[in-house]
């Protein structure tokens, strides 16, 4: 009965309209390019084929961004209210596709250096992006689950791409096992939510929950959904897998995994937290945010492997981002959106440097290897320094404004405790990022670490990341205003929460 009631509007419409297809155009374009890569791969000559496939994949991402522009022209719902095109989903589409483009550029030479010959690498990136893009525009829990699976399965395979390395296989298997476990949680949450409200559509669930008394089941469901997504974004206490997986996986893939799927999962989380808006999720997020920041930063302090260090740092950054979720909807959403963008730029850049410097077999990944990099390769060292300073949150970089917006949203929502934990953590965090800078500039290298010249594709990727980091650090207004506009659309569906501080009424509408 309920099923029919839910899907009743679906039957009133006939077949999907052309507008429906426009609203998933980026996904379609990316899928087509992914398939082209798969089809061409066996035909092409092994040596040269790699590069051609990389170029095709790159073209695919550019076409995907173009398609996103088309998609943005026709906002609205599609496919029986399962997909929603709004400013919010456009933002995340552009973000994940741009991330993929940079990752492809980073992988371009990396694949040759590591002697990985497999065209499906690029196809998997494209398919993964399809899933992530869909996650950001899906407003129906089952579709979100499917999109999540598309993106996850690509990531599981990508993590194991250094086939000759045991660590990579371990990474892939761990990621797969724990990831499936987490997605099962998510699916269970979907089922419970359906049981509680009789719907899988986010808007309807939100309306249903606001209308009447909230069944206990809904709380449990949200908790389960949070567990599933918490795993994907590597938030404590669901973060244990992160260091091992990041250590074993190929460095460009880690750059990818730590930014794009996270951004997509945060997009879903934003919709779930702020549109469904179940009360009392607040403490769930508060605790997870505080734990992630603290465990991530403390864990990173003692790492000696750069990839593990950045893994712990990504846990900490997930924590900072969750602070925004604990804040009020409007401010929190835009702050979180800005943060994902800034984080993507700086973290991708950092991993791009790491993946080039690691060399064949990813041999050079310890902190000692970075000694004297400032002399042996000023370009790589300078680029990495910019990204690390941004991760610390130093002015003139995107990371600064990202943290700034998140904490100011938190202060505005009167979360002083969480803000203090956050700023203290960012002080502690400065230490381990600084250690890398110290290694690069203030120590002489004791080991012979070969530094090959930086290839053109990587230069392009680094330039893009640096430009984005600096741009977000000096002219944040444009991106933030866009995020705010789309956040406003997003939370309009739910009534605005009244901020807890009484004086806010005197504040002009600025943030």
């Amino acid at each position, binding site marked *: 009965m309920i099923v029919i009631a839910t899907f009743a509007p679906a039957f009133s419409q006939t077949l999907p309209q052309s507008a429906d297809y426009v609203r998933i155009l980026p996904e379609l374009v990316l899928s087509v390019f992914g398939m082209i890569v798969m089809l061409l791969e066996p035909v092409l000559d092994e040596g040269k084929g790699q590069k051609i496939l990389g170029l095709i994949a790159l073209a695919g991402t550019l076409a995907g961004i173009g398609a996103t522009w088309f998609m943005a022209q026709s906002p609205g719902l599609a496919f029986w209210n399962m997909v929603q095109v709004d400013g919010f989903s456009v933002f995340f589409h552009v973000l994940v596709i741009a991330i993929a483009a940079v990752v492809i550029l980073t992988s371009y030479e990396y694949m040759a250096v590591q002697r990985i010959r497999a065209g499906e690498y690029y196809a998997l990136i494209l398919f993964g992006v399809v899933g992530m893009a869909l996650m950001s525009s899906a407003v129906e829990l089952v579709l979100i689950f499917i999109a999540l699976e598309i993106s996850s399965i690509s990531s599981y395979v990508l993590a194991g791409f250094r086939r000759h390395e045991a660590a990579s296989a371990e990474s892939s298997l761990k990621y797969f096992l724990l990831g499936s476990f987490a997605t099962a949680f998510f699916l269970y949450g979907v089922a419970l939510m359906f049981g509680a409200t009789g719907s899988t559509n986010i808007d309807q669930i939100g309306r249903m929950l606001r209308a009447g008394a909230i069944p206990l089941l809904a709380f449990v469901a949200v908790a389960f959904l949070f567990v599933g997504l918490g795993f994907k974004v590597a938030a404590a206490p669901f973060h244990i897998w992160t260091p091992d997986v990041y250590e074993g996986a190929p460095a460009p893939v880690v750059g990818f995994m730590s930014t794009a799927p996270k951004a997509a999962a945060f997009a879903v989380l934003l919709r779930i937290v702020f549109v469904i808006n179940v009360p009392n999720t607040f403490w769930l997020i508060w605790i997870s945010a505080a734990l992630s920041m603290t465990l991530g930063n403390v864990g990173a302090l003692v790492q000696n492997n750069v990839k593990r260090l950045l893994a712990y740092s990504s846990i900490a950054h997930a924590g900072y981002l969750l602070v925004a979720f604990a804040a009020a909807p409007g401010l929190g959403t835009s702050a979180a959106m800005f943060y994902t963008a800034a984080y993507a730029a700086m973290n991708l850049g950092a991993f791009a440097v790491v993946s080039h410097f690691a060399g064949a077999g990813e041999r050079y990944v310890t902190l000692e290897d970075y000694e004297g990099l400032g002399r042996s390769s000023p370009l790589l060292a300078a680029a990495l320094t910019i990204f690390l*300073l941004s991760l610390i949150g*130093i*002015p*003139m970089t995107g990371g*600064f404004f990202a943290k*700034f*917006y998140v*904490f*100011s949203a938190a*202060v*505005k929502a009167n979360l*002083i405790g969480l*803000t*203090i934990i956050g*700023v*203290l953590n*960012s*002080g*502690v965090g*400065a*230490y381990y990022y*600084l*250690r890398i800078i*110290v290694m690069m*500039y*203030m*120590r002489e290298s004791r080991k012979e670490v070969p530094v090959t010249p930086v290839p053109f594709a990587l230069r392009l990727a680094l330039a893009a990341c640096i430009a984005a980091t600096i741009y977000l650090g000096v*002219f*944040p*207004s444009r991106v*933030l*205003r866009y995020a*705010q506009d789309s956040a406003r659309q997003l939370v309009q569906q739910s009534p605005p929460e009244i901020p807890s*501080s009484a*004086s*806010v009424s*005197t*504040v*002009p509408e*600025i*943030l």
Partner: protein
Amino acid sequence: MSTDNLSSIILTLVTFAPLAGGLLLTLLPRRDRDIRIFALVISLLTFVLSLHLPVYFHRAQTDFQYQIDKQWVSTPNIHYHMGVDGISLWLVVLTTFLTPLCVLISWKSIHERVKEFFILLLILETALIGVFTSLDLFLFYFFWEATLIPMALMIGIFGHERKVYAAVKFFMYTMIGSVFMLAAILWLYAHTGSFDFVVIRDQIASGAVAKFPGAAQWLFLGFFLAFAVKVPLFPFHTWLPDAHVEAPTAGSVLLAGVLLKMGTYGLLRFNLGLFPEQSRHNAWWVMTLALIGIIYGALVAMVQPNMKKLIAYSSVSHLGFVVLGIFSFTQAGLNGAMFIMLAHGVSTGGLFMLAGILHERRHTYEIVEFGGLASPMPVYAASYLVIVLASAGLPLLNGFIGEFLVLSGAFQAKAVYGILGATGVIWSAVYLLWMYQRVFFGKVTHPVNNSLSDLSGFEKMAIWPCAAAALVMGVAPIVWLGAIDPAVQAALTPFARVASRMVGQ
């Protein structure tokens, strides 16, 4: 261009000229001599530009002058708002005065990675000037944090043996201190809707913060912690000796000359300016810490075997005077505090340069390694004497004016503060003159010192302006105080109000 037009953009020019120079420097080829000359030209140009500020400054006016206010980021409401008053005016000039001297003193001593060094130096100058000129709290924080990186890199790359330890310690202390300020700034923004210093000050005065019980105290502490670490006030001072001993000479000069003043400037501008009532309530323990700093710093300085560490601890002691003066809430005290900031910048900057000159010749700062230097290096000894006496507070030199004013202010506040503070003057004479005697008088104890060369041309050019400034400031302090006094009076008006309200109760 007419002076009016120039006045409207002068602060932007002064602030960003060094940065522009630093960026141009990245394009220059690595010919060390050209790079040095270019850096010198840029820093001198900045100094000349900055002289516009005192020349066209309206002394009677207490408002901020040369203001520029443009929106930078619309959301949140961040403005590019700059301006100076009598308090910040001279600190800007101090910065631009010391930087060319830093270039000169580094002429020979920095011979590796010359380009990077001067780029860092120029970036640092921009950040320092920005700290003193910004009137938007966000912009202020921005520049405040921006000073950290070039300074830490300068210590870490160009420093001495334990440079990395010192650089990281410096960075972490200041960073952790300043995140509390960030939290306070964010809170203020959330409840006033503005980052603008003037707007926030007016809103607080009209009770925007008072309606949250206890908030003002926490905000006061948030700002205070960031500034106290920077000053450094006892017990937050432990990073300073390490940073100074390891830093290259130019780094030490700017660190002691300007960076420490960021802390005292912050206390004066923000803690006193925004939270007059809390400042009053907390004055007793802040002044106690300042007194401990004065006496403790002096006693520790006395027993230092290392010349640079001695000067570093003397900074702890001198900056204690500044804080004592600020929290005396008297006109004399504040005038004196401001004057010590400038005097200390000139004379301690000079002392660090002189110590650096010795280090270049002997590669050590240990006092026992020297003795009887007056005969092989007469010019050096004479210059050293002038600066030591200035630092020790001899009348007619600049140290005296400030200390006298601060002590008279402290006496007005409470006699015991003045009495205890006055002992600091004696201590400083003891440790400075004792050091001078051990280094310069008597026979040459180490034969190697006989062959030390006297000051070179570049060194003279770096030291003598300091000595001259010390003398001029000591003879004609009114030139500086004339601009400082009205600003200080304006800064004290809320205290008159607070006091009268207290009396009324």
